């Protein structure tokens, strides 16, 4: 993500519909370029429209639902299960903070309920999703031909987490007491581990360890597409920002045009000293 934000401004390569257009244009995929002399008019685009669309896309994978329903049936529970686990984790942390620092908080009870709902539904959905995705990857030659060891490993890794979590809640910790104690432990730098932790078990330990490893591992893999989608959509697919005279885009382009390419084909005429600007403004004599 850090590398992405330091990359030079690229040329436009948007594809329509662009979701921050006005609602009437989004409906059929129109753009501001449909308007005569648009550069003299105030643009009515709305970033809110874009966020609305992205939120549903990231949460519910609308694109897959529309274009590839059978895969969505397993992909949605997989992704939503993961999101619910992240939500459950955040709720657990909040719960731990309240329990430790706000005595008799009235929010503890509703939080408990939310943790149970998010936790149970996340774990059930996650298991269905992992089993389903694994089955689809193995049984469908279209998917199998493109699946590598890493793809199976990634699903298995997540499956281990969901399975161990399922076993531990089924085996005696349906109210996530173990997880709550773990969250308290995180906040108190481990001191709560001194006490009795109900539901502490091998499966509970496996789920905690695998969850921690996943939190580190996912951002390093292509599985980060879950949230990198934002950049793929926002920074490329929908990046229609025009280059207005004296604006930030123009400044960035002027900087880019000073870069010195080293492409080797003879018609390019690059020698490592000439900039893009030099090369674009001169056409070397070529035989035709």
């Amino acid at each position, binding site marked *: 993500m850090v590398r992405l934000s330091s990359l030079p401004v690229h040329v436009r390569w948007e*594809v329509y519909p662009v979701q921050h257009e006005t609602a009437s244009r989004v409906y059929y*995929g129109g753009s501001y370029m449909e308007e005569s*002399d648009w550069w003299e008019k105030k643009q009515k685009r709305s970033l809110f429209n874009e966020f609305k669309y992205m939120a549903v896309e990231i949460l519910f994978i609308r694109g897959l639902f529309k274009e590839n329903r059978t895969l969505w049936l397993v992909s949605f529970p997989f992704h939503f299960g993961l999101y619910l686990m992240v939500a459950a984790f955040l709720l657990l942390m909040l719960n731990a903070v309240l329990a430790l620092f706000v005595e008799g908080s009235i929010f503890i009870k509703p939080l408990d309920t939310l943790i149970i709902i998010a936790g149970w539904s996340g774990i059930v959905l996650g298991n269905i999703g992992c089993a389903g995705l694994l089955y689809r990857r193995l049984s469908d030659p279209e998917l199998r031909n493109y699946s590598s060891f890493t793809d199976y490993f990634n699903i298995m890794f997540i499956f281990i987490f969901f399975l161990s979590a399922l076993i531990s809640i089924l085996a005696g910790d349906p109210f996530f007491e173990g997880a709550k104690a773990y969250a308290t432990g995180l906040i108190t730098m481990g001191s709560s581990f001194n006490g009795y932790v109900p539901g502490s078990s091998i499966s509970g330990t496996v789920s905690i360890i695998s969850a921690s490893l996943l939190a580190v591992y996912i951002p390093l893999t292509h599985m980060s*597409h879950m949230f990198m989608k934002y950049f793929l959509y926002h920074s490329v697919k929908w990046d229609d920002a025009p280059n207005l005279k004296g604006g930030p885009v123009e400044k960035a382009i002027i900087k880019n045009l000073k870069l010195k390419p080293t492409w080797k084909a003879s018609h390019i005429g690059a020698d490592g000293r000439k900039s893009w600007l030099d090369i674009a403004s001169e056409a070397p004599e070529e035989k035709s």
Partner: protein
Amino acid sequence: MKPSDISRKSECLCHVEPADLTPLPFPYEDYNDRTITALKPDKIKSIESSLDDTVAVGIPKPAGEEEEKAFVERFLAGLKKLFEKENNWTFLQPLILSMEHCAKCQTCSQACPVYEMSGGKDIYRPIFRAEVLRRIYRKYIKPGGKISARLTGDIDLNWTTIARLAELSYRCTLCRRCATVCPVGVDNGLINHEIRKLFSQEMGIAPKEIHDKGSVLQLSKGSSTGMIPLAARDSVEFIEEEMEEITGCKVNIPWDVEGADILLLHNAGEMLAWPENVGAFAIIFQAAGISWTLSSEAVGYDAVNYGLWYDDVQFSRVAVRHADIARRLRVKKIVMGECGHAHKALTVIADRLLTGDLNIPRESAMVTLDNIISSGKLKLDPMRNNFPVTLHDPCNIVRSMGIVEPQRRILRKIAPLFREMTPHGVDNYCCGGGSGFAIMSGYNFSEWRTLLSSRKKFLQILDAFSGEPEDMPKYVCAPCSNCKGSIRDIISYYDAEERSRIYYGGLVELIVNAMTDMKKPIISFGGEPSWA
């Protein structure tokens, strides 16, 4: 077939049998047993031709091991450059994002007309070439790649892998239908575009129709048609005479008018293949009292910019020439004529290339014409276009620019029997001639195009006109020169004029055909005037 099979020894990696192709309906069933004519062995003995049944690039076979090795090394050097900002600032971020985040869900395959029409041939999957590039990149460029390749997906790299990849990059029309359906936002069309760039910018490999006889010719002579400025002026003079003869309307086409409101850029191919399009623009602009001009300077009378499909440097050179001509003419804006790729090239892509006084406003002719029609300046009788009309949406104008409604608003006013295709607008299918295919015809490539990449368009056209009387003339309105080229070829190959009375043309011809000032129709069907 797996991506790693691209390195496999084989005389032909993918062969298309007639039964594999999506069948055509009545009265075209007799075409269902046709497939691509076999390549002549003597013609292909010294070039790479082992990918499928056709050849687009025709890379010469290496003389020996040394040459093979040098070829592979050069490819890898180019691949590295694709990921460097000095060499590829233009597309670096989109490329990295698309390379890193594919979930291999195959949703894109179902959206690709080439894949679908071929009967699901694996090599034509949008993800196939992307995955080949991804694996080569990971294994041979990324640190530790040779070890991790066993885990992330292996591939062998040899001369054949690379030569086949070059060919394969010319089996995708860059229509980007796949990109619109990808749930992650990955763009396999873009990856294909980058593969073409690598071959052109580093290795000097590109089909001769788009490089030697395309952008090189345009930059050196003035037009990819080979027309020098004098020839362009002659053509236009001829068009003026012809317009008067056809429509009875005297038209003057202005050249090099300094300070005009509009510089109109035509695809120079129109002047030669469809002169009535150039003439119709002039009739409309004249009738609407527009201040406009053409440029007679080399490159200024040819809107094409083939670099869009394969080479950022050639692209930039042509875009800069276009903008500089407009700057020196001191026009208020450039209006792009009926040429889809030229639209996207100068309006969208060059937008992040042209700075200062080169950044002259650019507008689509669809928008200018919509304005003229809505202003009521032209007197129109839609009943003069009383025949079924369907609209083809050029990918570059519609899916890549979001210019969808202006041309429809016009058609609703001038074509009472307007029929939409299914699907249409941003979901429409490519004409099959995108990304240079319409002008590529070496070996048997035009047959591959008509049978495979244009097949979906032909089915869409037939579907749009299904239910219309067989003997009634039908008009496919294609406001793009390249699209017109491939639709012309589809109609001719499948004998559709004879069998279904299907004709084609641009949007401006339909407008002029409806103008009450015209004494005679500009549109005729097989010599028969469209109105009396």
